[in-house]
Each structure stands twice: as C-alpha cells, then as structure tokens.
C-alpha cells in the first residue's frame, strides 16, 4: 500500500508543495481582507472571519509542510513516509511531463471548444486525439470508438434523458 520511498525526491516535492500552498494562502488572505461587512454588523463572526482563518491555516500548514520537506531532505533516508497516499488514489510511478502537458492542453481545448463546436464534433476529435496519442498504432480502433462513444452518448442524453447537449455547428 505504501509507495516505496524514492529518497530525496518526495521531500523536495513536499517543500515545493508547501511553498505553493503558503503562497496560495497568502493570496487568499489578502483577498479576504477586502471582504466587506454590512454597515452596522457587529457580530463576532462576520463574512470575512472564516475566509481569514482558513487562509491563515493554509499559510501555516503550507509553511510547516515546506519546513518538514526541507528538514527530511537533509536527513535523507529517514523513515518519514509523507506522500504515500496510494490508498486514496495516489500514484506510484512518475509521470512523463511532455505527454502530461499535451494531455492537459488537449483537455483544456476540449473544455473551451465544447459549447461553440458542439458535443459531437468536439468529443469525437478529443477522443480520437487522446487515444491516438497513447496508442497511435491502433488509430482505426480509436476512431471507431470515438465515433461510437460520441453518437451513443449524444443520443442517450438528448433523446432518452432529455438533457440538452450543445449542438454547436449542427445547431
């Protein structure tokens, strides 16, 4: 269940993740200070109280995580198993950055194009693309799957479940 400790790397990642959390918390804290109160509101807990407390928690916990990461990094090989969340869907192999980036861009484009281009075409294009990025040799299968999936889902939702999907260029 636990991810094998790969030495320095997880600790460095913890340090970075903690830093990012703390920075995010600071941004939220600044934004929380701009939340206004109703004139005459004298309650102990106003609209800004929870956001303020939560952003402080983020900053504090982020800094603590960062320091932990740095400290454990120095004491390399220590028995600190931070970062083992395999049971919660955590992963145990490293992800190739290049392909990840391509996938994220494809997904982002799909999200943006979904409404203007329409469900059928955008879904067909997205599925064909991502499946072929992983397994280009079987492009025929990928095209057939993409076609079948988009048509079947479109018909099921628009006809059977009466959920309207963007028709896009067909509309």
């Amino acid at each position, binding site marked *: *269940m636990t*991810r094998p400790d790969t030495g320095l790397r*997880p600790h460095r990642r913890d340090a970075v*993740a903690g830093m990012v959390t703390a920075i995010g918390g600071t941004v*939220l804290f600044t*934004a929380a200070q701009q*939340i*206004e*109160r*109703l004139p005459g509101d004298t*309650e*102990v*807990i106003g*609209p800004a109280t*929870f*956001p303020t407390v*939560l952003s402080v*928690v983020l900053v504090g*916990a982020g800094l603590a*995580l960062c320091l932990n990461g740095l400290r454990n990094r120095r004491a390399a090989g220590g028995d600190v*198993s*931070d*970062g*083992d*969340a*395999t*049971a*919660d*869907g*955590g*992963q145990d192999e490293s*992800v190739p950055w290049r*392909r*990840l980036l391509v*996938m*994220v861009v494809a*997904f982002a484009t*799909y*999200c*943006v194009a*979904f*409404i203007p281009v329409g469900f059928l075409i955008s879904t067909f294009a*997205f599925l064909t693309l*991502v*499946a072929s*990025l*992983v*397994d280009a040799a079987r492009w025929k*299968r*990928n095209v057939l*799957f993409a076609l079948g*999936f*988009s048509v079947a*889902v479109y018909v099921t*939702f628009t006809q059977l*479940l*009466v*959920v309207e*999907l*963007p028709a896009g260029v067909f509309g």
Partner: protein
Amino acid sequence: MDALSGLLTGLAAAVSPQNLLFVLLGVLIGTIVGVLPGLGPITAIALLIPLSFGLEPASGIILLSGIYYGAMYGGSITSILIRTPGEVASAVTALDGYPMARQGRAGAALATSAVGSYIGGVVAVFGLVLMAPLLIDIAISFGAAEYTVLLIGALALTASLISGSRLKALISIAVGMCIAMVGLDPQSSMERWTFGTLELSDGVDIALLAIALFAVPEALHHLATGHKVVDADVTATGRTWMTKRDLRLSVPAYGRGTVVGFFSGLLPGLGPTLGTFASYSLEKQVASKERRKLFGKGAIEGVAGPETANNAGVGAAMIPMLTLAVPGSATTALLLFVFQMYGLQPGPQLFDSDPELVWTIVASMLVGNTMLLLLNFPMVKVFVTLLKVPPPLLYGGVLAFTVLGAYALTFSAFSLLMLLAIGLLGYAMQENGFPLTPAILAAVLAPLLEINLRRTLVISNGDWMVFLQRPLSLTLLILFLLGAIAPVLITWRRRYSSRLE
C-alpha cells in the same frame, strides 16, 4: 410513523416495477464504474448525477444510492483482482484479497466479499431502523451549538484517519473549505473571493467539485503515463465459491465485521473507512497464532471482516446523513447534495414531512444489496472483462464524461472552465500525495459549520463559553476529545509493543 412499519411501507414502494428498475440500474452501473480501475463510488455518483436530473426525487436518489453500494462492490472486485481500490475503505480488502488472487483463490475471495457485503448491508438497514428514531429524538434537541461541535468533530476525525501525512490532510480540508467559501456570504450576501466575477458569486457546485477532484486527476494520470493495455493478469478467477473451511473461517468474521463496521460508520466524518481498518486489525488480533502469520499473505478472514464492515459502515453512514444531515463520508456528503438538489433537506423534519420517501430509499438498500448478491455470483466474470478495457479509451471516455457532467450542471461555459481549473488543482494535489476525499467532505461541511457557529454566537451574544455551558454540547465535546486522543494512544501502544517484539 413507527420505524418498522415505515420500513415495510417503504419496502412495498421499493419493489414497484419502476423503483426495482432504478435499483437494478443503479447497482449495475455502480458495479461497472466501480470495477473500472481507479474509479470509486464518489466518481461514479458525481459523474452520473446528470442521469438523475429528469427523474423524480425518490427514483433519482434510489438510482444514485444503488450506484453507491454497487460501486463499493465493484471496488472490492478490483481490490482483490488487481490491487486497485476505488476508495480508501476497500484498500484493506487488497491486503489479503490480492494475495489470495495470486494463489488462484480469487473466486473464494470474491465470494466471501460478496456474502460479507450482503450481511453487513442488510444488518445495517435493520440497525438504521432501530437507531433512526433514537437519533431523531436526539437531533430534535440539538441546537446550533451542538451542530457546531458535531461538525468540527467530523472534520477533525476526517483528518485523523488519513493513511498518509496529517499535514496534507489538513491542507486538503482547508482547500475544500476555502472552495466552499467562494460566492455570496449566506448571512450578509457580501461577495467573498469572487474576484469580481459574476459567475463565482453563485459559488462552486459540489457535484462539479467532486467530478473535478476525482475523475479528472485520475484520468489525466492514466492518459499521461500512457499504458496501452492493462498489465494485470486477471484471467484466472476460478469458481466463485468458498470451501467449507473458508466458510468456517469467514462466518465469525462476518459477525465481528458487522458490529465494528456499523458502529464506526455511525460516527460523522469517518464513515466506513475506520470500520474496515478496525475490522482488519481485530481479525488479526483474534486469529490463532498460525492463522495470524497468514495475514497479508491471503487470510480469508482478512477479506471477510473488512468487507462486511465496509458495507455495514455504508448503511450506518446513511443514518447521520438522513437524521442529522451530517454526512459520515465524502460519498454520503455527495448524496446529501443530491437531496438538496431535489429541494429536500434531510433531518428529523424529513422523516415527518416525507416518511414514505425516506423509507423507500432505506428499503431500496435492502433490495439493492439482495440484487448485488444475486447478480454478482453469475456475473463476476462479465464484470472482470471490464478490467481489460484499453486505458486510453477508458480514460478518454471518462474525461469526456466529466465535461458532459460539468456542462449539464449549469449549461454554462463557466462550469467547464471551473472543471478545468479545479481538475488541474486536484491533479497537482493527487500527484503530490494530498488526499482528496477530505476536501469534498470539508466543502460540504464548511457552510453548515459556519452558519451554525454564527447562529450559536448570535444566541449567546458572542460568548464562546456557550459550548461548555450546554450539557449536550459539552458531552459531544468530551466524546470527540476522547475520540481524538484514542487513536494517538493506540499508535503509541502499537509502537511500544512493536519495539518490545
């Protein structure tokens, strides 16, 4: 209405052809999604919420609850066969289930898990019938102060039960609560963290959050790692049945698992997870010396106990959700959201105002569990073939479903941008070992906590001592403190005894 007669009325409604169909559909879809590697009950429900839009409340909730326990069962199948649990609760099953599968005893592991789940699930329904009236009585005497303590306790317990870093769990909870703060303040209607965008003033939809945090990161991860085929050997499942010896070892574990699972499932914030872990260590404790050596290497009790506890916990987690509107797990939190989506507010009033609905849902759990048992013995081989769906097609399809689901929630382009943004946040968190389940639970609990805390302090004129002055809230506080101290003591004792060994 008396609880038992309520259940009977509910049962009559649950076996109407239409509702039977929805239960069947729910458990089937749930099992299918649960079997798909990496997709658990939360993902299943979140992705399929759009399916229930056009349905009546009872049918929709029956369908989605069916998906819940179907997905739990499907998750056990993947835990046993390829060691990929869909959620934390079934991670324990893999400890002994997977070694059993490696020894060619997958059939026995699957059978004991199916029977255990059934027993746990059915007993939990009867437990619900017994406990619900009790809890309703307590719930009626609950004021804002008690709810505040209960919710804080739930959040604290969530953080305590994470397998990895507590600090990361805390950050995850804070992130979930922060997301829930976005939008208009419920009391003063002031804008909070909307950064001037009109769309953000509506806040972030819980279903969108669940889809973005669970389905998107999982799918992105699999697509990025780029496996073309599933690399696990899942052909040899063997016959799905147990030998007499298996049964003899399993039956006492069923009993213990039910009790442990039910009572830990009742605790808000913990849900079934604690129960499965507790049941596993209990089975190990009570095992004979020779059997104890087998734990982790394919001891059938190690599958039977936790699986029973898991489903007993699922049923039990519905109790605080229905009677107190305080969900016990991330999945029940999502179900709570579904109730609210239909304009229903769980709690003691719901039992008064719409008893038939409540009891129909409860009774459908009985029907659903029975269907699962009947379906799974003959159909396990069919479900197993799902494990061979090529990952690029599967996860591409999952991403398409996330976009479809996000779109169907509001029919706006903004939802899709939120899906992308939160999905990437979730991906970054998951890859760095932040547990994501606490974030969902926290996002559901945060607004409840805020409103009750504010109410308490308005009533007490800003005096924080009110939490200690009310006997009921003081009792709850003490209980939670004990609950928080106990795990620390247990870990301490375990460390101490392992040092002695």
